[in-house]
């Protein structure tokens, strides 16, 4: 493989793997929200 191909492959895969791991880590670290809110927000309209 040429150097440019290796650089692009490793950097693209590295970027995607890092971002995926980061977002999943953040999902797992975020505590669940307490309480259930099923209320409709005010100010939004609903057409028939």
């Amino acid at each position, binding site marked *: *493989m*040429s150097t*440019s*191909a*290796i650089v*692009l*492959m490793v950097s*693209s*895969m590295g*970027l*995607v*793997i890092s*971002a*995926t791991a980061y*977002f*999943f880590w*953040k*999902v*797992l670290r*975020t505590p*669940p*929200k307490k309480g*259930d*809110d*099923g*209320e*409709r*927000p005010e100010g*939004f*309209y*609903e*057409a*028939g």
Partner: protein
Amino acid sequence: MTTEKQQWGSRVGLILAMAGNAVGLGNFLRFPVQAIQNGGGAFMIPYIICFLLMGIPLLWIEWSMGRFGGKHGHHSTPFILNSMSHRPWWKYVGVFGIFTNIGVAAYYCYIESWTLSYVFHSIGRTFSGMSQSEVAGFFTKYVDVAQSTTGIPYEAVIFYVICLALNTWILSRGLSGVEKVAKIGMPLLIIFGVFLAIRGLTLGTSGASAEVPGASAWAGLDFLWTPQYDSLSNPKVWLAAAGQIFFTLSVGMGTIQCYASYLKSKDDVALNGAASGFTNEFVEVVLGSSIVIPIAAGYLGLDWVKENAGFGMAFQTMPFLFEKWGPVLGVAAGVMWFGLLFFAGITSSLAMGTPWMGFMQDEFGWGRVKGAISFGLITLTLGLPTVFFFNQGVFDEYDYWAGTVSLVVFAMLETILFAWIFGMKKGWAEINEGADMKIPSIYKYIMLFVTPFLLIAVFIGSLITPKGNDWKGAFSSLGSGGGWPLDNTSIIKQISNSGLKEQIAAATDPAIISTLEEKMFYVNLARIILLGLFIGISILVYIAHRKHTAKKHAL
């Protein structure tokens, strides 16, 4: 689904279901071929840019539209869109969000059934001792329903029905059934994919043979990843990258809105959307690029890959290559490859069933089982023509109109609705409601200007694709007064069946003319079926609207 107040069991389950919806066969088969055809490694630059400017914003838009609709008791796009605007016709635009899913499920379940069938053929070592052309011929024989590869009559139909029945049964279990499949299927898909990707990345020149002495997996990877920077100035490459991002994320289908409509009003959509989007990208960029191309180049050589790279490789080439790994590893690889494709397929096809079920439950009070069975029966009715008349082009016609054009049209219109009609101020507040991550505020402007622009560009690019996809040549021709030469793959030319008409005009053999005319008949039949489906759903939406109006007047 509203009658039983369904909701997701866990956050990880929701993300895996959303990622499973996005991850499909295209991640492994379409992406590497698109990359090879559009500048190799340089394709990744527009691809990543389009992911950040179009893909991620569309995910956030669809997630927040779905959660917003769910607050109002709507779980399918006709009335989700309706609740976002005073204009009553938006609910008919929302019909795309049900139509596309049924239209795509009809043929997608057929592909899914191939993968299921090939798992059994891999275990039974059907491909043992077959030459490459025999393996390719096996597939041709399989899709010709008049023939049987196992002695079971109508084998392809039987596997298709089994596959649809499985989908229907899981759907009848509701969101918990979908979530369970995602929680099992997605990790297995990733494990199988990682195993095959490691094999692809480490194969090197060990697959070279006397027939193909220069075969090398490195050459395949080199060809895939070497940047050809001159391709960056070609609009074709940018349109291909935007198109790939679009299809890989399953945006413009109405499934994301449906899944998100079962969120609570304060549940996060920002982080969840990003996590599911990047999971899809992991499967596509990391695993998708490391399996088919390097393994095929490792045994058959780069020249073969250049000539034959395409969807058919999954079924016509890979079983032959796996046989070279010996009886144990060959069977394991076959089961993993087709198992991986099956899980990629079923997590997507299950998502396609939920908008119809959500709509019928919301508007007509149907239960889960009735909704699931009706989806199965409609899909079967629409899908059988793709099975029986596969070689007559019905399958491709469904794929083009329901699986390609409808997605682009719907995504373009829903983005305009969200950013310009619902309004970016309210839209931005909706996306950030309960968000577990801070979205950079530049995305407010990206959603307002860049994403709609890119979607309109993809649509116009598909509508008026120039001859040979040569955009530079077409602009030169237009500038010099020669007009805009349209390609037969453009939507305008597709509508008028120009390609087929040209083939008929050029043919001299009466048998070929007769075959082409027969194909034209089936192509038009497929369009009538799809049009009938769209009109049928629109009538149901109209009836539901009348019911809403009558209910309001009664109060």
